[in-house]
């Protein structure tokens, strides 16, 4: 996302150019945000570069050019960066930190003093692997310049070797007048989008200086897909395999909904939960089996076993959901153990199809405070009860949940945790999550690559593949003399065992690479590094301290090698010395799950000066 502007003295500090240059190849996006500012005042002024980027992105580079001098950000180990930054921290200077803003974005903010009649160029690079959700990839660029910009441009180049199935572009600020300015060309595997509004077109009203560009520029697309082994990109010795087959029958699922009805769920949250559950019930497939357990200080089962989602049973379930009411404490342990037992019984008694996916969906808005309330003990009880047989998805509703507790419990049981934000659309968020796991298509997916010829392969076995998602595996080709790259996929669908093979001759790969002129050459290597770091960071959550150290060291090493700002690394940006109490936000990047805190704002002095010849460091931190 983009938000570049000087915060004050708008007339004297002018952003004369602002450009977002985005290149996407095989779902890997590299965004370069460039802002050029000139100080037209007779004294030095503070220019602020304020950009929003997706939480899932890694900053890869940041630089400033002031008066011809380039100041480049250097990624360092977090502790090293902290020590270097210690003095600045002691003075209360926190310019350039990253903080979470909203549900999906992070804010990168850095300010610098520029002398009279001088210019500064800010350039931020961030990279992101676009994740397929509900059948599409989405890239969001947040746009909020605080003034009209002479040269404003968003330029997106997309190249997908599988072919682009559809491409939609929209923006929350697009009026009917602005719509024709968005140029979109799509030819098979390539697409180009550009948005270059003139000053007049940027204006919120005729002849006024207020910009109308405020909102999200959203691009959504999908690639052509069928029931095949997917697509493999091989460049410079690294491969990335995208596997997201279509045209498969759905596998029935058995789901136990474990619903928190403690006192804190009262009113809006309970209303929204019911609203979502009613919608989810209507979407259940008649081949699915389901059950409800509601809990507060104790739990209550709707039925003593899972039942088929027949019309009559769903009608009865609607009635049950309507009668849910909130009150009491939060006992998470007992209902989860009961949910595992319900599924065990259903499988042991043959009440559910042999080929089916069994899952527990927990919705809670609070910490356990009744029954077993020790989070570690609950995690261990649940892990023992589920015994790697079912998926546990935890939905943390609002900000009172201990998200890290839910996250660890989910990951330990082949699931994921998701935060449900307390907002008017909470019911939609719940439904949206359910839809992601509502349609399993494959079970026990294993991807194998040319034996002894590859190394450092990212996760390649998956218990399920869901409709609308995609499996991504990357690795390094260790055999320099490899003639043929072979990927074998084994999986089970609703009725059969499926194997698929992808074969490509390495000489063919070279030709293809040359012909296609990849948008950036080493993208497979960077994508591999990105994916590996992400997986290592996630694995850290559910392992013991010794293994955690190994995973952390490996992730840190990769982040440093590839210059990624991650929770383990920080970026030091050196810039000209400034006054100590610049007008800045005190910002840190919180880990997902922490309660978001209000940004503290300090008032700026009326002016500031550059101390010539003196430098100090500021930092980009992300944890």
């Amino acid at each position, binding site marked *: 996302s983009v938000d570049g502007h000087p915060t004050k003295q708008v007339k004297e500090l002018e952003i004369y150019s602002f450009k977002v240059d985005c290149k996407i190849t095989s779902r890997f996006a590299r965004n370069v945000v460039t802002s050029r500012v000139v100080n037209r005042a007779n004294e030095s002024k503070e220019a602020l570069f304020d950009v929003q980027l997706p939480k899932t992105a890694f900053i890869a580079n940041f630089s400033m050019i002031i008066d011809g001098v380039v100041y480049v950000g250097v990624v360092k180990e977090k502790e090293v960066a902290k020590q270097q930054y210690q003095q600045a921290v002691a003075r209360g200077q926190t310019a350039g930190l990253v903080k979470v803003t909203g549900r999906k974005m992070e804010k990168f903010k850095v300010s610098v003093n520029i002398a009279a009649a001088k210019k500064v160029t800010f350039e931020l690079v961030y990279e992101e692997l676009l994740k397929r959700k509900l059948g599409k990839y989405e890239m969001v660029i947040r746009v909020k310049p605080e003034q009209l910009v002479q040269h404003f441009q968003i330029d997106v180049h997309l190249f997908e070797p599988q072919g682009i199935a559809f491409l939609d572009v929209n923006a929350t600020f697009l009026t009917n007048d602005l719509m024709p300015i968005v140029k979109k060309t799509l030819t098979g595997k390539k697409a180009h989008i550009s948005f270059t509004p003139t000053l007049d077109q940027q204006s919120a009203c005729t002849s006024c200086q207020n910009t109308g560009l405020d909102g999200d520029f959203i691009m959504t697309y999908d690639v052509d897909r*069928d*029931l*095949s*082994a997917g697509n493999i990109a091989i460049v410079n010795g690294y491969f990335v395999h995208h596997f997201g087959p*279509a*045209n*498969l*029958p*759905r596998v029935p699922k058995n789901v136990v909904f474990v619903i928190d009805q403690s006192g804190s769920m009262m009113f809006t949250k309970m209303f929204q939960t019911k609203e979502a559950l009613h919608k989810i019930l209507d979407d259940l497939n008649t081949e699915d089996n389901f059950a409800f357990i509601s809990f507060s200080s104790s739990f209550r089962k709707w039925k003593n076993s899972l039942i088929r989602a027949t019309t009559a049973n769903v009608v009865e379930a609607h009635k049950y959901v309507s009668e849910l009411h909130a009150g009491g404490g939060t006992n998470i342990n007992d209902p989860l153990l009961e949910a595992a037992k319900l599924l065990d019984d259903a499988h042991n008694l043959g009440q559910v199809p042999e080929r089916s996916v069994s899952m527990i969906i927990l919705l809670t808005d609070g910490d356990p405070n009744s029954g077993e309330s020790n989070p570690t003990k609950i995690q261990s009880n649940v892990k023992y009860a589920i015994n790697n047989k079912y998926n546990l998805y935890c939905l943390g509703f609002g900000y009172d949940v201990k998200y890290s507790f839910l996250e660890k419990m989910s990951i330990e049981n082949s699931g994921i945790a998701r935060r449900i934000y307390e907002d008017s659309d909470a019911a939609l968020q719940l439904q949206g999550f359910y839809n992601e796991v509502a349609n399993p298509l494959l079970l026990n997916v294993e991807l194998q690559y040319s034996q002894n010829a590859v190394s450092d392969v990212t996760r390649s076995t998956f218990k399920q593949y869901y409709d609308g998602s995609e499996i991504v595996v990357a690795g390094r080709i260790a055999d320099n003399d490899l003639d043929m790259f072979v990927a074998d996929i084994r999986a089970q*669908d*609703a*009725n*059969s*065992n*499926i*194997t*698929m*093979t*992808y*074969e490509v001759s390495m000489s063919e790969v070279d030709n293809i690479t040359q012909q296609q002129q990849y948008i950036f050459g080493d993208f497979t290597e960077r994508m591999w590094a990105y994916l590996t770091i992400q997986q290592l960071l996630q694995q850290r959550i559910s392992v013991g301290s010794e293994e955690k150290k190994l995973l952390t060291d490996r992730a840190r090493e990769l982040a440093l090698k590839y210059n990624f700002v991650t929770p383990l690394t920080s970026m030091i940006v050196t810039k000209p010395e400034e006054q100590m109490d610049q007008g800045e936000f005190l910002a840190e990047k919180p880990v997902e799950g922490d309660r978001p805190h209000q940004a503290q704002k300090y008032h700026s002095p009326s002016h500031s000066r550059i101390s010539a010849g003196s430098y100090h460091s500021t930092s980009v931190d992300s944890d």
Partner: protein
Amino acid sequence: PHFLIAMRPPNDAVCFNIDEKPGVILNLVTDPVTGFVVNGELIGDKKTENNKKVNTYFGKFGLVYNKMELRMEITTQEIKLFHGADITRFPWSATATSTHAGFAITINKERNLIVTMGVDVTFVILLHRVWKNHPLHQDFLGFYTLDNHRFSSQTLGLLGQFYHPIDAEVFNIRPGFDQGKVDATMFVKGHKLTVTRGNQKDYRLDPKHGTDVPCWFVHNSGKGFIDGNHTDYIVSTLF
């Protein structure tokens, strides 16, 4: 399409053509005991010149295996596998296998589909790709039986009737009506037929050029060699 029936011993073959209009569906195999049925739909060239014979090929096959509630629709675009209400669709661009209890399909991308039932029944469906801008021809399919041991003796169909042994005798080999070809008399199923020595292609080993297989060609759409008339094998639906 041309039909090629292996006769042994000696290792020889009988062949015949069935000429029908595009869109006609022919029954190739029907086994009332195992509930296995194969039908094929004919397609023609993209366009035909006036008064010229319309060449037809198989463009679509339908396989039904009632015992397992399985159906397959194979076209030149994709392979659809129906299992009860479920549909799985494989493109020809995939190399894939799908294994059910006692039933498996293997797709060798852009080449062929192998259907096996247990260890005693194996079919191969070949994909013939034609240059997509060819003015006349279009992609078509071939159907080969590799093993038919599990079929019952009651199996019918243009191919199925030959899954159990028949006797044929060829004699009185003589110069034929066409120069360079010989005719002969074939005694089969109580009929005396005039047959012509010729070649037909087997594309299993060489999908592009095919391998010539010498065979005795039965005229008039196999009349006398097949049970009844070829029109008796026309069915109304693929399944």
